[in-house]
């Protein structure tokens, strides 16, 4: 279902919404679901029966159900009222993976069962929120393309407890999820990619002689995966071969083969991951952005971010 902030919601928004507005919380809209409309229709039928037979118990049943409807309206609204979302974070992912946006929620100390979350462009996630639950809500969003995922809003909705009403609210997001380019392995490490002129005899990744194994990085050729070693634990390993490669390479956008910018970025990503895994220092040269050679994970992440944000 999608949100329909129609005229009905204007009438059905209740007083606490006014309080919410005062406290700067997002508005909660609420409308009957289809079973909700059918329930009201049934109520009308029951009322006709009660009037026709002028039977006070029948009146009581009708009014009790009508009041329950009202209570359900209140409670369904309360499912979302006072629910506020803290900042949203997403770990960077490679294109083709799924980005998980982590949403820290302030439940206001209330249990809120069966709340559906839908991040813009993603699927629905149904969560039972309990105040003592420490896990943030994780919402998947497929990261199909390199760049920055900026879902503009997340929609919460709930029909609990009776399924007669659906309350929903949209919370604007300021979150960014980095999507690194998908690493594309090449036939080796072309020295052309390194603008640094030093031609070392070893130290880079080549194809000639087996050197050892190292941790798997996305984009490694499946042919190179050290299956035997990988089978021992949860981690994957890749076989390394010694070959010709540059030392302290600077990965240069213009030196990578190919014409398509995205392809080039993908290749650069792979080379960068390899350079990082080898433990050496490396730099990145993109049109309009140069990252001086460096080492370590933080440096690698800086470079990957530059690749992700390229052309922004």
């Amino acid at each position, binding site marked *: 279902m999608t949100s329909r902030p129609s005229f009905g919601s204007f009438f059905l928004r209740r007083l606490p919404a006014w309080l919410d507005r005062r406290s700067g919380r997002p508005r909660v809209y609420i409308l009957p679901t289809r079973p909700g409309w059918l329930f009201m229709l049934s109520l009308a039928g029951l009322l006709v029966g009660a009037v026709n037979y002028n039977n006070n118990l029948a009146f009581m049943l009708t009014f009790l159900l009508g009041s329950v409807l009202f209570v359900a309206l209140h409670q369904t609204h309360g499912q979302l009222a006072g629910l506020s979302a*803290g*900042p949203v*974070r997403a770990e960077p992912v490679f294109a083709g993976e799924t980005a998980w946006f982590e949403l*820290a929620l302030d439940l206001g100390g209330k249990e809120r069962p069966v709340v559906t979350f839908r991040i813009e462009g993603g699927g629905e996630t149904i969560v039972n929120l309990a105040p003592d639950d*420490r*896990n*943030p809500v994780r919402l998947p969003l497929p990261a199909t393309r390199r760049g920055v995922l900026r879902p503009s809003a997340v929609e919460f909705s709930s029909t609990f407890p009776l399924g007669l009403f659906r309350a929903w609210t949209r919370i604007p997001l300021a979150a960014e999820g980095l999507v690194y380019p998908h690493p594309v392995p090449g036939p080796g490490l072309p020295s052309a990619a390194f603008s640094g002129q030093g031609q070392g005899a070893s130290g880079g990744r080549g194809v000639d002689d087996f050197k050892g194994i190292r941790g798997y990085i996305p984009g490694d050729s499946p042919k190179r995966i050290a299956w035997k070693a990988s089978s021992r634990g949860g981690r994957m390993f890749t076989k390394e071969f010694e070959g010709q490669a540059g030392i302290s390479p600077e990965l240069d956008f213009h030196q990578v083969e190919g014409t398509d910018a995205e392809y080039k970025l993908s290749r650069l990503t792979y080379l960068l991951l390899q350079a990082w895994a080898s*433990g050496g220092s490396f730099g990145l040269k993109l049109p309009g952005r140069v990252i*001086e050679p*460096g*080492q*370590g994970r*933080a440096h690698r992440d800086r470079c990957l971010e530059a690749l992700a944000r390229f052309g922004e």
Partner: protein
Amino acid sequence: MECRYQERFETVVDRISTVVLGKQPQIRLALTCLFAGGHLLIEDIPGIGKTTLASSLARVLGLGFRRVQFTSDLLPGDVLGVSVFEQKTAAFVFHPGPVFTQVLLADEINRATPKTQSALLEAMEERQVTVEGQTRPLPRPFFVIATQNPIEQSGTFPLPDSQMDRFLIRVDLGYPDRASERFLLELGETKSHLMRLETLLEPEEIGAVQAAAARVHAAPALVEYVLNLLEFTRNSPEFQVGLSPRAGLALLAAARTWAFLCGRDHALPEDVQAVLPYVVSHRLRKAKDFRELTADEAASLLARVPLP
């Protein structure tokens, strides 16, 4: 408002940064650490200016300075000192080790064996040395700047988490920016500048600054904020373990000193935010890969805890 030390503090930073180029934030943090009575851990590759920072600090503040290069064969006695039998007097005479100084640079602390490491860390914590049953107080102030190379891992003994907690602040120096490096290359060695640094503070004044910094007002609202931060790290599934009460004390002490050095007699949330990344990053590990946080990651924590 009391702001007697503010200009003086700025002068100290200025002077030191003529020797350690382009590192004002780190110098400020180092001073905060010193005046808060804590010890400093610098994590970076060699040749980046750690020694220069330590010795210039000592010089400007008029403190004694010693440097110990930690290696795997360094023994606790080499740091703390040993008693030697002297023929002349026919008695054991204690030869104090390099720890008996005011500013000690413990270079590459993770290269020493855990035994030596813990000997030093005990001295840091207790500000005294016990050798062969005899306890000797260390000079005051006593300030240790330890360094670690995070890249090289072979042949090292990483400090256990409990020991990391002894350092009030951790910073990484990082490469100098381009302008500073150009300056460095053109000017050559800065050691000569170091010699020309004059003392700006008397040793007894340092004690007074430390005492005044500890008296900075922390309002209930501020304490509440620190509590919220601690609670957040304990409740967030992102971290393996939350911050300890000791970390909370460290955070408040660092924030107070920062506020004091900024010329205020009360601490603001901004003071907590300024020091927090460097106070907590080495005390938290990510639940996902047990990795310590970087200062940036620690700073992102701030955005998620609203002010009370």
